[in-house]
């Protein structure tokens, strides 16, 4: 690959990624580092959601099930095996395999239906996983959850930071490549006009299933990291609130941009942190979800493109127009 062909934006992202490696030397407070780690993890989760919502135009209300699968497989594997790096890799493998099987089955069963059904069914399925995690106490420890030990190397907060950042950067570039590939273009075509894509001869269902498997696998990796960062897991990893959080991150940041969800994850996590800190000031801040929900509704009505999307359409008008012109010439 010729280095000159690399886009300008790629260089910017690489530089930002490298700069982030220095951050833990500047911010040494453990709680702040922990928050940044959480932001990375939720950024991964939100990016995986963006593949569904932003690129393929599928709404899932049960995306949290893959996150939960990742978290629980890590916790259970680490708990049953020795706390070594090897068992960590086994945990990732187990998480990815289970998540891809589940997302394949769910996708193959329900993606042929209209968007409403998929949203409802995934909501119900995630509910089923939550109940299963509560009831299957011998495996999951029920509602209380359980703690587990980590291998020596991952106990250090700095190492964990690097691990999460590296995963985020790799997954970001991987997913970016994925969405810019011919395959990703077909996904966007499905988002824009499903019937037309079908009539052009693409098997829409296959593309959608593969997209949902990819999103499920990435979400499960976010779950793995989440469990690692807490060294604890309980049924909260299957809660619908998490799906809502991730929806909010994706939508506020900008759907279909991949960078947007990362930005959204940062904003939402920081806002969450500050608002729950404010609950000592006034009890209304304990109910910060009201504020969240209101912001979310307003964003959906007035800024459906999100922060990055709105900026892009404002400043990069030229490129969109250029695209239209090139389409016209092709048409001639």
């Amino acid at each position, binding site marked *: 690959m010729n280095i000159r062909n690399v886009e300008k934006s790629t260089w910017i992202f690489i530089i930002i990624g490298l700069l982030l490696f220095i951050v833990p030397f500047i911010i040494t407070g453990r709680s702040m580092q922990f928050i940044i780690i959480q932001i990375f993890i939720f950024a991964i989760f939100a990016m995986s959601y963006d593949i569904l*919502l932003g690129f393929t*135009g599928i*709404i899932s*209300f049960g995306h949290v099930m893959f996150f939960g699968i990742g978290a629980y497989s890590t916790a259970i594997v680490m708990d049953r095996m020795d706390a070594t790096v090897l068992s960590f890799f086994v945990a990732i493998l187990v998480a990815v395999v289970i998540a891809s099987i589940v997302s394949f089955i769910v996708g193959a*069963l*329900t993606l*042929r*239906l209209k*968007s*409403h*059904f998929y*949203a*409802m*069914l995934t*909501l*119900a*399925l995630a*509910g*089923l996983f939550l*109940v299963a995690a509560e*009831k299957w106490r011998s495996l999951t420890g029920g509602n209380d959850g359980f703690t587990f030990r980590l291998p020596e190397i991952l106990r250090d907060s700095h190492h964990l930071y690097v691990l999460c950042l590296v995963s985020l950067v790799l997954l970001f570039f991987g997913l970016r490549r994925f969405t810019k590939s011919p395959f990703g273009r077909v996904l966007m075509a499905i988002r824009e006009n499903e019937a037309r894509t079908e009539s052009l001869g693409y098997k829409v269902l296959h593309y959608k299933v593969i997209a949902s498997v990819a999103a499920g696998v990435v979400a499960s990796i976010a779950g793995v990291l989440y469990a690692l960062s807490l060294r604890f897991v309980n049924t909260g990893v299957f809660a*619908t609130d998490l799906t*809502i959080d991730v*929806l909010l991150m994706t*939508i506020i940041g900008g759907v279909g941009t991949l960078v947007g969800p990362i930005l959204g994850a940062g904003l939402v996590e920081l806002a969450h942190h500050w608002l729950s800190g404010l609950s000592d000031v006034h009890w*209304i801040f304990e*109910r910060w*979800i*009201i504020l*969240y*929900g*209101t912001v*979310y*509704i307003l964003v*959906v*009505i007035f800024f*459906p493109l999100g922060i990055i999307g709105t900026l892009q359409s404002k400043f990069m008008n030229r490129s969109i127009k250029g695209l239209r012109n090139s389409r016209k010439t092709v048409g001639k």
Partner: protein
Amino acid sequence: MDLIIGLTVNGLATGMLIFLLAAGLTLIFGLMSVLNFAHGGLFIWGAYTGVWSFQMTGSFIVGIIIAIITGLLLGLVTERLIIRPVYGNHIQQILITLGFMLVLQEFIKVVFGPDQKAVFPPEILQGSFLVGDIVLIKYRLFIIAVGLLIFIVSSFILKRTRVGLIVRAGVMNKEMVQSLGINIKLVFMLVFMVGSGMAALSGILHAVYSGVIYAEMGLEFSILAFIVVVIGGMGSFSGSLFAAILVGLAQAFMAYYVPALSLAVNMLLMTVVLIFRPQGLFGKG
């Protein structure tokens, strides 16, 4: 035998409660192709305001009336503020109604407090009848009666009156109805309000039935209603009654014989229906 009858009555009562919730969902979907994820929010607002006024006045009838009024008003507000700006855009509709669901749920905690509340049925509906060896709990029979009454009245309105005719025609082809000079937006609003009122009624009845109310109840219970709408077929009114009773009975029997599987059995039912008849048992095309 008495066990089976007891479980059947149980299942029918649960089924009727789910039906009241699902009927609104399915009509709103059929007419406006809006899937209202905030329906569970209307359900809990009905439950809380109903219970509150029931405990204040001591009259269950007042509680039910207040619940229905709350449902109608909230339905009006929801339709105007939340649904109307995003007509025709499915993705936005789904996203926005879920957001509103959250807001409704959290506002319950602000107004009524975040703790669970205990609810007792009114004296006249406490206790049970004894027919031979069979114990029939009064309140469950009451729910079944109310559910059937609502079903019969709404079917009558849908099938025999002019308003019902317009609604049914709107489900089939709303552009045509509009071009015939009927204000379809007004019809949308009315149907939405009636659906919300039914959800609120379901809420207050369920609150007394289960004996306890909490804010998350709405989302949990509306998942059952979604399952029912899928099984019965979106937009089918009698389909939702049939599917609700099916789900209610399946749940009641499973909860007794295999408690761990009581939610799974409904998911299983839905999966089977989706594989063999994706449009639902009573759905068209």
